[in-house]
């Protein structure tokens, strides 16, 4: 009976750990994807409606993590500070790119904004590709390995 319970517990633990690892990489990719969408949205809005940075950040409808990043950047900017992305879910280079984009947007003029959008869009595309690659190579692999580990533990217990 104890063996059965242990087997079930190990199996469940391994499955949940695998799923959690995958979810982490999925949400990282989702934040990068949201960032890329925000760049494209900002590009449209600033070109045709000349929407200001604060309204862009305030009104953009995004998922939980990226919304938190936007809210923090908006608070920083309103306080006269440099916007800083501190999301723990992202890698250092992604945080740097996001911060640089927000700060660039607050400093560029009409003529330099196109260069900023061009650069940031390309950088975000690259980050997105890397995040998706990581999701496949690490997230899904960890999920499968954890499942196998669970099965292995069950076999050992038997």
């Amino acid at each position, binding site marked *: 009976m104890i063996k059965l319970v242990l087997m079930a517990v190990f199996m469940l633990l391994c499955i949940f750990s695998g799923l959690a690892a995958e979810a982490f990489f999925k949400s990282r990719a989702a934040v990068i994807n949201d960032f890329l969408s925000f760049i494209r949205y900002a590009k449209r809005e600033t070109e045709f409606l*000349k929407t200001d940075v*604060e309204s862009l950040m305030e009104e953009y409808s995004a998922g939980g993590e990226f919304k938190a990043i936007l809210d923090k950047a908006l608070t920083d900017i309103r306080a006269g500070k440099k916007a800083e992305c501190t999301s723990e879910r992202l890698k250092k280079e992604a945080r740097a790119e996001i911060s640089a984009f927000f700060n660039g*947007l607050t400093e560029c003029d*009409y003529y*330099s904004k196109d260069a900023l959008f061009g650069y940031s869009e390309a950088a975000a595309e690259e980050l997105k590709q890397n995040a998706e690659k990581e999701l496949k190579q690490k997230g899904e692999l960890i999920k499968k390995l954890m499942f196998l580990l669970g099965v292995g533990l069950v076999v050992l217990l038997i």
Partner: protein
Amino acid sequence: MLEELLGAELYADAIRLCPPQKICEIRLRAARKLAVKDAFLSFLSERTIAVEEISSVIKRATKNSLYAYQEELRKGYLPFKGGIRIGVAGEGVVERERLITYKNITSLCIRVPHEVYGSAEKISQLLNPFENLLIIAPPFGGKTTLLRDVARYLSLTSDVLALDERGEMNIPEAHFGERIDFISDTPKSLAAEGALRAMSPEVIVFDEIFPPKDGGILSEIARSGIKIAAGIHADSVENAVGRYPELNELFRSFVVLSNKPRAGSIKSVVRKR
């Protein structure tokens, strides 16, 4: 509103020199002293302005979005809420003999509008019956203030359209009649044609006209039977009409304002027969 624009420290220094409700102009010049003006006098603070403070004011004025104010910057100013206008000076960027923007801005001239309710009553004889009216004044002469009150006065009885290119007329504290419409932050030349057809005004009020650029629109409006009230930079009727003879045909009444002894002082009134 001024505090929001200047930031707490600069604002505190400015109101130490002059009570906030009396401030008409604030000048920030890099490495020079903060200057504040009311309707009569100028005051200098002991505080020396740093370039960073100018940059911070620009950031607040543009909501951290300089790119959205390109057209205004090209014309040498930045608008802020409440009709506050910020004149800028610095290094001009010229391309193909056209000024495209300013960079390294080193001076700001912050103009704070005030409503002087009833100032148009002094020239009520020119407003009833109303004929095309030109208000002539040097800078800081009270032209926009008087025009705003003329718009208020006329909008009690006529359909008035204010082409408020720089957003200085429709300020929150101002009172107007029920029959007024505003087209704000849009160049007169772009707004006039559509507005004439769509809004059917009886009177159009312009903040500042520049005849070489706006002459065509003014003639068109006058030909269509709509009355005009406008302002122009000059110090006398002769000067204004001498420079731009077409004004003599367009306008029947002229009010000349002076900034001495205070902004808005009426220097002369001319009505053609």
